Structures are given as C-alpha cells and as structure tokens.
C-alpha cells in the first residue's frame, strides 16, 4: 500500500514537472506578464492609466516577442475593506503568479509597502519583478533604510527586483532643496503617515533639512484614519512653521491634512511627494484649498509630468491621448516603460525561462525608453535621476521646474 502510494505520488510529481517545464521550453507558446496594482480605491484613476500603458507596450510589439505570444493579466492588490493596497491580497497575487508556470514577469507594485510583501516571495521563486511606482529607498539601497534592508527582501541574495522610477533618497532631498531655496522656508513641520513609503521619505527629508541648516520644528506620524487633524494644525501654528512637508499619499489622508491646515488658518506652503501626484488628490482636497493664495501646494515627482516628456515619451503621450481621449496620469509612462523593458529583456533572453529573463533584465544598459536613455545599476535601480516639482493651478497640475539632471552612468 505504502509502496503504491509512493509510486502514484512520484508519477504525479513527474507529470507535474513535465507539464510545468514544457511550455517554457517550446517555441510558439504563450508567455504571460502580470501586473499587481491597487485597482480598488482612490488610486484607481492612476492605476487604470498605468495598465493602459502596459497594454500599449504589449500592443506595440504586436502581442508577441520572438515568436512567443504575450498574455497579460491585470491583478488588483487592493481590497474594498481597506480602500487601499492590502498585504493579504498582494501576497495572494504573488503566490498566484509564482504558481502559474506561464508567468515570466511581474510588473508591480505601486505602493512600497506592498513590495515589501511580494519581493521576498518572488525572489525565492526566481521570478523577475519590475516596479513602475515604488520609491522607498530601503527596497534596493543598502545602508539607506532599516539595518536589515534590503537583504531581508532578497532571501536568495540575488537581485530579482528592479524599478524604473528614482528612489526617495533623491526625491526627499529635492523636496527639501526646493523648500529651502525656491520657497525660502527656514522652519518646517514634517508629518508622515507611518507607512513604509511616507515615513521613509519623511526621514530622508528630515536628514536633508538638518544637513542644509533648515530647522525641523516638529516631526509627527499621523493616524491616517483620524476624522480630522485640527489639533495638529494648532501645534503646527504654535511651532511657527513656515512650511509643511507631508510624507504620505492621497490614500493616507493627505487631502484631509491640507483641508484642516487651511481651515485652521495655516496658509503656508504644503509640500508632498509623488504619492499625491494624481487627480484624486485635487478632487479630495477641494479646489479652494490648493491655490497659491492659500499658501500653495507643491508636489515632487520622480520624473517629468506627461506634458513635459520628450522623444519616445512625448510620442507615448500623443498616442495615449489619441487612443483613450485624455492625458495619461503621471505614472502611466512608468507602467509603459516597465513593460517595455521587460519585453525587451524577454526578447534578448536566450532561453525563454524565468532565470534567463532575470539575467537579461539585469543586463539592461543604455536602454532607449520613454524616460530617456538609462540603465539598471547593480542594486536594480534606474540610473535616471530626473525629477520635477509641480504645483496646482485652476484645479490642474502645473509643472514648475525640473531638477536632478541627466541619468548617471552605470558602472
């Protein structure tokens, strides 16, 4: 009996092995790309635009690479209960992608906190992950986040995670520099949402402020679910802050913080990072609260807004507008770029399996993309350093200036 069971088990596992390995080894089969982005909640407009970008990248190649048909699945990592990304859903998405033998690449995530969940899982499974949106520094750069970062996300020690957007060590510093020189603020009150991304960028901001001689008069983690922040606003007024930096996203109540600041009479500049660079933020904050007369809102972004792109990027925006009838949200071009660099790597990979694709992505050098010509460095980061500062006028985002400059050379 025992022997028979063993025989059946080994037969099944042999069959499973063959079934799993076979499709990837043959020409004319399907390869699948999945994306995992928060499709439920206020990030929906942003992520719909990103998914459109991914689809356009696949369509450009006629839906196939090197004789392999490319399938695409748009997965949601948010849940209605949270209205935001949900660790359980993100973990389930990663598991599903790993178990599906056709999946060759994972485009995601949008939120750095979500990446923390799926990065180690995909790393162990040896599936390449390219993020169009994560900016938390510790995900890739040793010595810049928590002590165990980024090793904790790479249990195998290999680099399987890449991102096409510059990290927050650059963004936080840019925000600080802009506040100090362009806005002329000397005293700043720093708020964050206690999430990986928000706290991370607030920490970078505080470090840069300390280094540049700006005075940080307060550093507080808010409760993203609080009904209002009126008492914090009094604290901010009492501290004599000349500007407020909020490390967080639209989903973690950035708009409520701004509303309460304006209602409480604190007409000081409000600077926030790219997590608020979406139309949902303007809608939630209300048009009257974002004007220059009320102190102004300035949002940094790890790249150029759609209407400032040049070359392939400008071309993408033009085609996007023709196809979808509206301008893409800020991160659409990153979805597009992430998918393009993945397809390019699949094309270059000798064997169309997960390991070869990882090697091919890592070997990306001087890639001509919608964001300029850039490479992936040894940590899996883009060498692109172009950043922008934007404001809001008449209920629309308006480009203020570009900072950061040309991509640095990969070593």
């Amino acid at each position: 009996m025992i022997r028979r069971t063993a025989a059946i088990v080994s037969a099944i596992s042999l069959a499973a092995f063959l079934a799993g390995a076979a499709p990837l080894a043959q020409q004319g089969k399907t390869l699948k790309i999945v994306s995992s982005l928060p499709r439920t909640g206020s990030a929906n407009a942003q992520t719909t635009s990103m998914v459109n970008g991914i689809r356009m990248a696949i369509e450009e190649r006629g839906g196939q690479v090197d004789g392999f048909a490319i399938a695409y699945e748009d997965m949601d990592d948010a849940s209605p209960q949270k209205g935001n990304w949900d660790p359980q859903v993100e973990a389930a998405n990663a598991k599903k992608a790993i178990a599906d033998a056709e999946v060759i690449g994972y485009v995601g995530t949008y939120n750095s906190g979500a990446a923390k969940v799926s990065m180690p899982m995909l790393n162990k499974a040896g599936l390449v992950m390219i993020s169009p949106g994560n900016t938390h520094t510790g995900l890739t750069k040793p010595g810049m986040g928590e002590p165990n970062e980024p090793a904790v996300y790479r249990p195998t020690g290999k680099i399987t995670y890449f991102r096409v957007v510059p990290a927050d060590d650059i963004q936080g510093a840019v925000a600080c520099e802009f506040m100090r020189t362009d806005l002329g603020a000397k005293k700043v009150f720093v708020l964050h949402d206690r999430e990986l991304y928000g706290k991370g960028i607030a920490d970078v901001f505080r470090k840069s402020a300390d280094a540049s001689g700006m005075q940080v008069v307060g550093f507080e983690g808010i409760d993203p679910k609080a009904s209002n922040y009126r008492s914090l606003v009094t604290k901010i007024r009492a501290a004599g802050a000349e500007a407020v930096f909020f490390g967080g996203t639209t989903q973690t109540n950035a708009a409520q913080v701004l509303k309460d600041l304006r209602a409480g009479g604190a007409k000081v500049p409000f600077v926030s990072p790219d997590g608020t660079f979406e139309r949902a933020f303007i809608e939630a904050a209300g048009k009257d609260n974002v004007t220059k007369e009320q102190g102004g809102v300035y949002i940094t972004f790890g790249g150029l807004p759609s209407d400032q792109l040049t070359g392939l990027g400008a071309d993408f925006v033009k085609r996007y507008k023709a196809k979808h009838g509206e301008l893409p949200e800020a991160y659409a071009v990153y979805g597009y770029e992430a998918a393009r660099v993945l397809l390019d790597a699949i094309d270059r990979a000798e064997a169309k399996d997960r390991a070869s694709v990882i090697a091919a992505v890592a070997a990306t050098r001087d890639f001509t993309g919608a964001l300029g010509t850039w490479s992936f460095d040894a940590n899996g980061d883009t060498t692109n350093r172009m950043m922008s500062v934007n404001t809001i006028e008449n209920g629309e985002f308006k480009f203020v200036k570009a900072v950061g400059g040309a991509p640095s050379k990969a070593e």
Partner: protein
Amino acid sequence: MQRAIAAAEHLVPCILARAEAVPGFAADGMLSAQEVFSQQLVTGLSNGMIIALIAIGYTMVYGIIELINFAHGDLCMLGAYFALTAAGALGMEAWSGAGGAAGLVALLVATACFCGALNWSINRLAYRPLRKASKLSLLVSAIGASFVLVNLGLFWGGLPMDAFAGGTSAAAPKSFPALVSALPAAQVGDVVFSRTDLLVLCVTVPLMVGLTVLVRFTRLGKAMRAVAQNPTAAALMGIDVERVIGATFAIGGALGGFATVVYSLCNQTISFQMGYRMGMDAFIAAVLGGIGNLPGAVLGGILIGVTRSMSDQYVEARWTNTVVFGILILILVFRPSGLLGARLREKV
C-alpha cells in the same frame, strides 16, 4: 418653540456668512502657551460634542435592550452619503443667505429622518426577530448589519453623480461641500472659535437638552425608562414594549443623523469607512461614561475629544490612540461601571 425658531433664524445666517466677509488669518507662530491650551480645548470640545451625539445612540439602545449596536457608526456613515447626495443634487453649495440657512436646517432634519427610519428598520429586520434569542446572537446580528451598511456605502459612492466625482472610484474618500465656512465666529487673541465650532454647539446642545426633556418628562420617556428597568413588568403595566424599543432606535438613529451632518460639515471629507472610527470613538465614550447612562455618554464623548487634542499637542500624535485606550482601561479597572454608571449590569 416660537422663540427657538426665531433664535435659530438669527444664528444660522451668522454661521453661513461666507469667506469674503471676514479676512483670513495667517499662521504667525505667536501663540502663547495659554492660547495653545485654549485652542486645543476648543478643538477638543468641538470634536467631543460630535462624538457625544453619536455615543447617545449607543447608550440608548444599550440601556433599553442591552445590545451594543455595532451598526450605529456605519448608520451615521450612510447618513453622510445621504446628505452629500442631497446637497450635491440640489447644488446647495451655491445657496446663500436665508436660502442657505433654510437648506442647512432642512439637510439636518432630512438626514436625521433618514437615519432614524433606517435605524428603526434595522431593529425591525435584524434585531426584533432575535429578541428571545441569546444576547450573543443579537450581537452577531449587529456586526452583520454593520457589514451590510458598509457595503451599501461602498456601492453608493460609486453612483455616477458629480458629488461622487462621477463615481469613477467608489472607495475613494468624497469631498463634502463647505456649506459652513471655517472662518472665525469669535476670536480672542489667536484663539479661534470657528463657525463650524459654533454650528456644533448650536446643533448638539439643544438636541441634548431636548432628549433629556423627552426622557424625563414625556409619556414616551417614562415608558422608555420603564422598559429599560424591566421589560416584562412594563408589558404587564400595558406598555407596548416593541413600540418603545422601535422609538428608541428611531431617536438614537436621528441623533446620529444630526451628528453625521455636523461631522461632514466640519471635516468636509466622508468615506465609506468612516463609520468604523466614528463608531469606535462613540462606543468608547459610552463605555467611559457608563453605558446606558445618557449624561455619561455626553461626558465620555467630551472627555475623549479633549484627550485626543491634548495628546496630539502635549504627547505626540502617534501616541494618541494609546493614550485614549490607556485611559479607558484605567477607568474601567477602578470604576467598572464607567464614570457615571450607577450599577453594574451584565454586559454583552
């Protein structure tokens, strides 16, 4: 009554006067320590009064059928969606002067009626059939009702209306029009008592007084107190117990309706998840004050509002929840029946 209406007619336009009338004030960083304390007290009281109004809904229902009505916060959330739908459909943001004042009063009353009727129906559908069942079944039924309401809110937020940003993103927080400006109604030094604070005061105080009068001096109030003491004896005396319970749900819901409109006007953001936090704060307030005790709920609400403000100012915002729950635990250790709770009853 006539005089009260006349007073309201005078007050409401004062609250409604728009941004142009009074220039704004700038953050100058010159607040003295006393001013900071006073400002936090104003903010805390204002937030606390709203919590108190919701807490009354918890405590009334508990007093009469010993049920923690977990759906109460989510009922308030649906009330906010109702108010936003009405305000959006009628374009109330553009109303001014007497029309705006009348609209505001109408919005408050309509939302209160909506919440009262909804709470009455929930009792009829989800709680009344379980009257003879164990208290635990009733509690689970309340949690179920809460889930149903939350998902109704999620669906409601996806309706294709301008007020919901076209309904493109059902789960996103919705911006509530600023029908009442946050400009100062009174100002002492740099301490601001805003028009929204005045609104809170004008709505909550009369309601609390009215409720006290109702419970103490009317036939219905007498019947409610009798049912709370002993439903069987009350029934034997000829009181229609189910009717009284239904009325209690309707009144508690209506107070929640008033509270949710005031909440929305003050914070100007509503979301389908706001009921959880509203309900949690109010529930803590009710327990803190002694659940089943009306003045206790008001005291508890104000205490929580002020504690939150003071903790944000003098401790740190990230410790605020810890401070609030810490105080709750301390009070319950030394006074298990709450601050004003007279006797210890079997809790659910």
